[in-house]
């Protein structure tokens, strides 16, 4: 039994997807998330088990609309998708639904089809990417679009583009996810075979009429590359963990909590919208300036805890030489605040 399997216990492993890779690079310093994801631990259930559930559901209305939009595009041999992408003919190959036992077969088929270089659309390919020393399978809901010598990633999203503008967070999330696919494709086929421009297909205005826009993901790609290389090798981290660390959900809660304690988290308020463990990490980070957000922490001179901040501001504590500047600023702020109130 490998170390990773022992960490996970009896439960089946959760697989990475573009969203989790993107989230991982969003907070690359967080060991807790890196290890839990690498070991394929079901974070939703883990958070529920220890009593800190998060709200990470998706509305079935949103799902239904997303699926309806995609089905509409792909109906009749992708007629609508083709006309959205521009005058384009070629084959359409669907590599099939995601099932665990066909992983390597699908990956092999994906590789051979893409190496062929025939023009056409490829649906549900299976890609691999090295993340922190582990090979993860990506099952993008994407279409690779072979056009001439270059391959383009097509991402279908159901958020609307209104008068040429769309919600910024939704677009940047889509761009990072597409960048993950571009990176995975480039590692397979070589950099010059895959375009850094991805095509985003969204409904236009208030209708279901699709519109295609081209996004340049070079910036996201370089961020992704840098942060993936910076991710500490999780394998060596996992092997350095004590033997009794396990996240088998069958264990009692105190054992799970002490296991979690061995993994350092780097909590920031942004985690709340991306990580299933965030409610627990926030609880753990109580009283630290980081929990108030990066801008607050920076404005408070980068001090670690709120108690420290208040002690220095009131002059109840003498600052270390390294804190002298921050302490002077805080004392001045406290004096001005007292004077104004």
């Amino acid at each position: 039994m490998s170390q990773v399997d022992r960490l996970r216990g009896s439960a089946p492993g959760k697989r990475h997807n573009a969203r989790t890779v993107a989230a991982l690079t969003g907070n690359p310093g967080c060991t807790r998330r890196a290890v839990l994801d690498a070991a394929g631990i079901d974070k939703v259930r883990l958070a529920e088990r220890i009593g800190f559930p998060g709200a990470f559901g998706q509305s079935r209305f949103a799902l239904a609309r997303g699926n309806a939009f995609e089905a509409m595009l792909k109906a009749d041999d992708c007629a609508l998708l083709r006309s959205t992408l521009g005058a384009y003919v070629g084959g359409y190959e669907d590599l099939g639904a995601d099932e665990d036992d066909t992983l390597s077969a699908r990956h092999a088929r994906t590789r051979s089809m893409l190496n062929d270089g025939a023009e056409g659309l490829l649906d549900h390919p299976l890609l691999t990417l090295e993340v922190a020393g582990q090979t993860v399978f990506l099952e993008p809901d994407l279409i690779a679009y072979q056009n001439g010598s270059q391959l383009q990633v097509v991402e279908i999203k159901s958020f609307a583009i209104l008068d040429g503008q769309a919600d910024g967070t939704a677009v940047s999330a889509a761009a990072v996810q597409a960048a993950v696919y571009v990176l995975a494709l480039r590692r397979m086929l070589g950099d010059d075979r895959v375009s850094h421009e991805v095509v985003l297909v969204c409904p236009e205005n208030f209708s279901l009429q699709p519109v295609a826009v081209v996004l340049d993901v070079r910036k996201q790609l370089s961020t992704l590359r840098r942060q993936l290389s910076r991710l500490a090798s999780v394998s060596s981290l996992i092997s350095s963990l004590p033997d009794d660390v396990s996240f088998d959900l069958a264990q009692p809660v105190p054992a799970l909590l002490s296991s979690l304690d061995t993994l350092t988290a780097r909590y920031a308020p942004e985690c709340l919208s991306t990580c299933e463990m965030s409610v627990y990490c926030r609880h753990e980070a109580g009283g630290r300036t980081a929990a108030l957000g990066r801008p607050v922490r920076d404005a408070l001179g980068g001090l670690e805890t709120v108690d420290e901040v208040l002690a220095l501001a009131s002059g109840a504590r003498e600052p270390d030489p390294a804190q002298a500047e921050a302490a002077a600023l805080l004392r001045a702020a406290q004096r001005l605040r007292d004077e104004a109130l």
Partner: protein
Amino acid sequence: MSTLVALARAHALAAGRAQPIATVRHLHVHDRPLVLIPLAMAGEANAPLAALLGDDVSRPRLLVVGQPRNRDERFAFTADLADAVVPYLESFAGATEAVPVDRGRDVRHRFVDAPQVWVPNPGGADFLRLLGRSTRFRRVDGDHPVPPSVPRLGQWLTFLASSAEVPGSSLLVNAVQALGSHWATGQSAAEDAHFGSLFAWITDGARAAQEAENGPVAGPATDPAFDNEVLAPLIASPSPAMAGVLRDLLTPTWERMWKSIALLRELPVGARVGLRWDSDRDAYSAFVEHLTEDGTPQPRRDGAVAAAARLQRLENAAARYAVQRAFDDPLVMADHRLTGAAFGAEVTLAKADRIDDSGKRPVLRPRIMVTTTETVRVEPGASLTSPARPSQKAKVISVTPGPAGTDVLLELSGGMGRKLVAEPGSVPAVGERLLLTTLSEAYRPGAAFPDPAETPWTHGGPPPHREDLPVA
């Protein structure tokens, strides 16, 4: 994030309760505001689900889209919303007052009051903006005609949403921003976006805030769990009875909205809030005039010249709002003192009758010396003002740091009357405490922009003539 606000957040966390970051109220609170809580259908671009609204806390009116899957029902909802909102918005277009313009050579008229709409959060304001976008071009004739009130509502919502982008405007207020600019909580800004939680920090403290986090949402997005467990089974039936669950969902937010308004109303109002409400009334009057005279809907996107002019108006408004807040509120000014853009000082020397006769005519230019122990980050030649004497300029002649503090020599001009002898009290006397700042309330003239027909090629050239402009 300024250090003072960050420090207030640290205090709030330690005390378990929100801490004030303003000593006066910086927005106009209407006597008869309209509270509007929109709720959207997940998944679609700006599909309304319900709205709870009214100008009386005891009489909330709930509007529901009967069957959200039916588009006709949505338009019926928009018509109902128009009938509920537009009469309120237009009810202030009555009594007018005369305002002198062009140095008193002419007058113009503006309405003595204007509407004020409250939504819970920035998302609510955004929802109204998009609802305005989706309804203002609807046609009252043709294939899918709508009642004339629908495009009218669209124009009003577009007007409100675009005025909400003007810093310091109070025509469309979102409660999260209004509360957040007066109190700091012991949580992050991302968590403050939850209206219930922010409100609980201010009224009941940290523990209540944590409970409120799991409570009903303030819209416009619904909770996925609510969608899946409550709404979906209801919608599956042919004639869903949703009014009950939606009323239960929205009522806590309704009550918090009115309590927030009351909470803000209790604060003493800032001296310059009235000036900004005057600008709001100007904008309202101009828009009512546009509706009665021309009535074309706002364009999808501004042309190059209009966009540049609008950007400049927004920049000026932002600068004006920042200065006015600081002049109204010592706690906001403290921020500028901390960064060195303002300092408190004591007058040590004053020569009130100094005359500068080096020019063609002698002019009154008193000099004063002030001393301060605070950080002074001004250079000789800089122009300072004091909130106590906003029309008087103080030019920095010299800055001399010393062991007991910094001495700053200032030359005064303006605000002392027209004679060569200063009016009594207009020149600070020895011993007086002064606050001096580089912030200035001075009028910023607008830049000259070309006529839209002369838009330079760098900006896309003149816009094509739009024959197909939809008519409301």
